[in-house]
């Protein structure tokens, strides 16, 4: 996994500041060079730990039959929390269906997040209140909604930024191409955030596309960037720059977040049957949540007391999930 290791951006040497954005493709370097402040880093770590805690409990609940299905975002927390933190509270988010850590950043609680996987609803939260619209399970359909929403708000003279989350698999859908073309032609204020976890269920990325996602975006006339997104600090900074580009140019952008899927596509996906054991072992070893936790602790950004308080909150989340779904 030297490739993954080389993609890591470990930030500044003393660890007290966040890293710089890296590896811009097809674009000038980002102009956001400020470090990530300690408060933002603590918030990001907290969101990552909470998202991981929800994932742990949801997997157990699914295993016990209390959930029908669970789509884990394990391994993608840095990509999701870094990008969602950069997007901020104002932009409306059109997610796909694995953006649990983004939902956590948006203040959606564990019970609301898990409810749809227990068959209780198709959306467990209030989409307007959280500016986080319902999960869309038909791939890339939400990309067109996001573009239309941005056009609509502009027509109402209430322009706002829209963030559309898609996965690498979804970029093969016609709606994704239509959405990119429409966004480009209409100069829609949309940031497409594409998490490339390397897999469309069992089909590896290199078998899904001959050209990169960013190349395809460029082909439509959309500015694009590709970054390694295993580190929340650099992900945050790159996404912040991408969002600022979208807002200042009032035109679309696409950022590819190269990330890692540690679990299966769903809890029903026996992914070990088609994944190389070494690749999987490296993915587990490079767990972005544990790495970030260790880094911030070593750098003194968080201390044992802080971590205990987050763990207590995660334990409380576990109890709530058990109470609501396992009883």
């Amino acid at each position, binding site marked *: 996994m030297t490739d993954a290791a080389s993609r890591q951006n470990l930030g500044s040497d003393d660890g007290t500041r966040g890293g710089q954005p890296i590896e811009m493709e097809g674009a000038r370097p980002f102009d956001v060079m400020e470090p990530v402040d300690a408060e933002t880093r603590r918030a990001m770590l907290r969101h990552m730990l909470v998202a991981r805690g929800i994932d742990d409990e949801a997997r157990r609940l699914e295993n016990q039959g209390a959930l029908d299905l669970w789509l884990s975002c394990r391994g993608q927390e840095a990509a999701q929390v870094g990008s969602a933190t950069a997007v901020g509270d104002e932009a409306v988010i059109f997610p796909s269906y694995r953006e649990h850590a983004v939902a956590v950043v948006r203040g959606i609680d564990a019970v609301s997040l898990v409810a749809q996987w227990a068959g209780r609803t*198709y959306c467990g939260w209030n989409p307007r209140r959280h500016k986080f*619209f319902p999960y869309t399970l038909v791939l890339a*359909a939400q990309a*067109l*909604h996001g573009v*239309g929403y941005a056009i609509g708000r502009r027509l109402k003279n209430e322009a706002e930024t829209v963030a559309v989350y898609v996965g690498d698999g979804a970029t093969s859908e016609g709606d994704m191409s239509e959405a990119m*073309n*429409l966004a480009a*032609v209409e100069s829609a204020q949309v940031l497409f955030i594409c998490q490339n976890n390397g897999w469309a269920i069992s089909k590896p990325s290199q078998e899904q596309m001959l050209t990169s996602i960013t190349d395809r975006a460029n082909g439509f006339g959309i500015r694009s960037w590709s970054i390694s997104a295993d580190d929340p600090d650099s992900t945050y900074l790159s996404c912040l720059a991408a969002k600022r580009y979208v807002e200042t140019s009032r035109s679309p952008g696409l950022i590819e977040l190269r990330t890692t899927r540690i679990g299966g596509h769903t809890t029903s996906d026996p992914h070990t049957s088609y994944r190389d054991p070494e690749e999987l072992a490296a993915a587990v070893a490079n767990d972005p949540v544990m790495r970030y936790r260790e880094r911030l602790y070593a750098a003194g950004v968080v201390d044992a007391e802080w971590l205990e308080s987050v763990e207590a909150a995660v334990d409380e989340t576990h109890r709530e999930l058990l109470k609501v779904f396992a009883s």
Partner: protein
Amino acid sequence: MTSTAPSCLAESLNEALGQLMENDESVVLIGQDIGRLGGVFRVTKGLQKRFGPSRVRDAILAESSIVGQAIGMSLSGLTPVCEIQFDGFIYPAMNQIVTQAARMTTRWNDDLTLNLVIRVPVGGGIRAVEHHSESNEAYFAHTPGLHVAFPSSPSDAAAMLKSSCLLGSPVIFYEPKRLYWKRKRQPRELSEPVSALSARVVRRGSDITVVGFGALLEEVLAAADLVASTVDVEVVDLRWIAPMDTETVLASVARTGRLLVVHEAVGFGGVGAELVATVAEHGSNHLRSPMRRLAPPRRIYPPADYESRHLIGVSQIAGAIEEMCT
């Protein structure tokens, strides 16, 4: 109905769209060639000049993107009215209509107003090329979450379009092509529908109920006149395919004791089957004779030279009525 009612469907819809846009700033139109050109059927003629290109939007040539962006616009607070250029070109938008628009309100736990109208020129009889003469209403009627409007006259179409924009849920709005420029019409009873979404009795009679909708209602009314000396025909204009006002049909069948349903789409799995099944379940005690459907067989719509053989004509309808009543 006023005496100044426009005299053909294209004009009446044009006027209705103009009024809707005048009265409600949130109404925007999206469709291929609807702006500069005024639409291939000229239904939106002059509207871009009047309301500007940001409200009368010439769309990219991609139907999924038309409906997909309209869903997003509706979520943003607008009332988009889309035009799909021809019935046979709606299929690329099918996914957005069926898996997204139709389900959106439910997905939002009913806490959503989704104003969205998708106008679709429909039907044959105009010597059109392949894919330009389809009647595909049954697909959409089968999909929960969609309203399906199918007007049969210019003034009613205008009224139905206005109510469609206010429904708060998506509407597939069919516009029979044969009526766009047709000015001659069969006379009708001037009864108002019970509600905006009701069917309507357009001809009173006592021997048989004939249900139709869209352009074919003209043929039904002509057939009723043709047999008037021997059979007293009641004609019901269904108006909305979904939800379907079966109450009005059941009440009519209770009076006449006979039911014939006529439509242009193929009979198999069609609107007529649904209506006949409903009357079989809830009104069979009223029936004096077996119910019938009159619709084309399950065949691909033929090239223009053969379409008159495929379509249901006045003489066929008159023949079926007479057979059922003797």
